[in-house]
């Protein structure tokens, strides 16, 4: 074995990595070659010298930092592993984010709702629906006079020359009159009518359609009754033809 071959194997030799046969050869060569012996000595001393560098204590600050790191990672892993912990973590985060987003809005929001309530509360009572009944609405006064109400709700005097009026059912009426006998139900509404004399004038028709009466009472209980609507006949009053 040449010196080059031996020196190439010296490193493996000092680590005990040579097969037995090669080891024997190297040993035999070294025993007879001073150069290679010196080379072996120097490589071995290099090996031992580097090995001396093992003893270098770890800095205390690093140990402390590693402990902090481990506890952080442990906490991180713990939240990752358990579903309930993860869920509570997320719900906590969500509620915090929601609170943070909503808190600045809470006061304006409450103020807006309150002012909207006040505004609508003021406006709604003044809002009315348009009634599509007639231009005039008739009511009967206690004396039997027919009172006309304008659509605005105020009093409007009858426009015709001979305003209609209400009589008892058995009252005598002049010949020159249009008479309608009315049946009043227990609610004060007209449930039936019949023209007993003359013809049906617009004023009488209005009474039939819109008249409201205080119902008759029997032993204090509202009941049916009869009244007679009368309008003195006037030559100018145009008759309404009613199909009977």
């Amino acid at each position: 074995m040449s010196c080059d071959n031996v020196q190439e194997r010296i490193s493996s030799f000092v680590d005990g990595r040579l097969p037995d046969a090669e080891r024997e050869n190297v040993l035999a060569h070294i025993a007879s070659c001073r150069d290679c012996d010196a080379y072996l000595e120097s490589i071995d001393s290099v090996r031992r010298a580097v090995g001396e560098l093992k003893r270098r204590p770890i800095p205390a600050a690093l140990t402390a930092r590693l402990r902090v790191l481990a506890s952080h990672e442990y906490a991180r892993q713990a939240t990752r592993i358990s579903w309930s912990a993860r869920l509570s973590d997320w719900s906590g985060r969500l509620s915090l984010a929601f609170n943070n987003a909503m808190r600045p809005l809470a006061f304006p929001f409450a103020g807006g709702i309150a002012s909207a309530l006040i505004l609508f509360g003021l406006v709604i009572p003044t809002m009315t629906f348009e009634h599509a009944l007639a231009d005039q609405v008739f009511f009967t006064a206690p004396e039997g006079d027919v009172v006309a109400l304008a659509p605005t709700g105020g009093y409007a005097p009858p426009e015709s020359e001979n305003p209609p009026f209400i009589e008892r059912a058995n009252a005598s009426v002049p010949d020159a009159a249009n008479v309608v006998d009315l049946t009043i139900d227990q609610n004060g509404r007209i449930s039936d009518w019949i023209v007993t004399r003359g013809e049906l004038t617009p004023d009488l028709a209005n009474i039939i359609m819109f008249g409201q009466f205080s119902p008759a009472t029997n032993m204090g209980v509202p009941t049916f009754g009869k009244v007679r609507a009368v309008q003195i006949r006037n030559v100018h009053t145009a008759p309404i033809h009613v199909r009977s």
Partner: protein
Amino acid sequence: MATSILDLSAERMEAAAEADDLRLVEALRSGSERAYEELIARFQQPVYTLALRLLNDQSDASDVVQEVFLKVFRNIGNFRGQSSLKTWMYRITINEAHNARRWFFRHRRREVELDSSVEDSHHWKEIIPDGSRSPFDVAFDREQHVMIEAALERVNPIFREAVVLRDITDLSYEEIAEVLGVSLGTVKSRILRGREALREELAGSLKERPALRLVPKTAE
């Protein structure tokens, strides 16, 4: 006969270490706090020593050690047990040291070291006099350490990591091949080249310790 018994016990020890690794990895995966502490206790010293010898800078080595443990904690789920925990951790350390060195060369460290005095300070064990060793021995050792460190730093990093893994971390050739991801032959030649380079760097300075003896004498 004796060798076969040794082999057997070595094999048994290896199997025990493997089982211990698996137990530790399982404990880490299941999130046991004690496992985190055990991993640090077991590996902080060898990982730190390796990083320090690769970078020859205490604060860089500390940063690398932290990065290594962070990576191990985060990626323990990916550890398949194809290699031992030890070689897996050393491989991460080697990679992180590579990254740190690359960073160092790119940024060419211009800032002034604030805690350089801390870096130079020695551990109390090295400062407090040791009754069993003479002051001369201590001084000689320290001088020799500084010399070897400086020589090691001048060796090509590729050869240096092989030598460090072999002579400081005490890995076998097979383990080094696994850590570095190279063939056994490459490991052999890298160690050889590394030692050769070191021998040249240290030529003449690594002398045998002079036979100096201090004989206590009473004052006359």
